[in-house]
């Protein structure tokens, strides 16, 4: 038996550095958006069907429980968008050192935080 086989690490026992948490959240937001595409396609379909269904979907996306789904999806989109841009910037070789990676991760949280608040204003104000 080869003793040098790769080991499956127990992820639940790790203490993750901040940029790693930003990265896993990027993945979670991506999965949310994948599932959320169902809602987005439903909304697009209803919005284009008739004036009545346009008004109905607009109402259900901006009031009650539906408004939280709208805000949630916009938040996931904002976060995934900003964290994705960090990826593209890192592809250019920027933000790969410990210090700059931590700054980049902080920027992702701050900028997406602002966008998430603005998304809430958009949905409810």
């Amino acid at each position, binding site marked *: 038996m080869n003793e040098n086989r790769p080991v499956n690490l127990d992820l639940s026992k790790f203490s993750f550095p901040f940029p790693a948490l930003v990265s896993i959240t990027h993945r979670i937001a991506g999965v949310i958006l*994948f599932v959320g*595409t169902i809602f987005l396609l439903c909304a697009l379909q209803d919005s284009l069907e008739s004036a009545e269904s346009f008004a109905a979907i607009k109402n259900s996306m901006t009031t009650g429980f539906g408004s939280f789904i709208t805000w949630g999806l916009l938040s996931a989109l904002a976060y995934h968008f900003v964290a994705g841009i960090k990826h593209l910037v890192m592809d250019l070789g920027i933000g790969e050192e410990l210090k700059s990676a931590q700054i980049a991760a902080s920027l992702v949280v701050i900028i997406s935080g602002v966008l998430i608040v603005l998304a809430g204003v958009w949905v409810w104000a």
Partner: protein
Amino acid sequence: MGVSITNFSRSGLSDWLIQRFTAVVMALYTVFIVGYILSTPGLDYSQWKEFFECTGVRIFTLLALISVVAHAWIGMWIISTDYIKPAVLRFAFQATCFLTMFVFLVWGIDIIWGL
């Protein structure tokens, strides 16, 4: 097992490129749609429908939809190979994702071009 599990494009480099290209397409589309909605106060059904009747908007929307499907496939594939160890479960997960994305694509084309 020494089998290399290939994915969407059968090459990691090509996956990497597709993931970036589709990301840029979706980012531009997001800015485009959000920009349109924000710059059209009191947007009503007739304006919205007219907007989506433009061939350019339809083509851009279809390009964005194809990007969503390709991007999500690569992303979900990576997630499945990272976190789902039992092969049967992983395969079932990937198959479910694939079917879902196929439905998204056909459904989306119907919405965009079936107006």
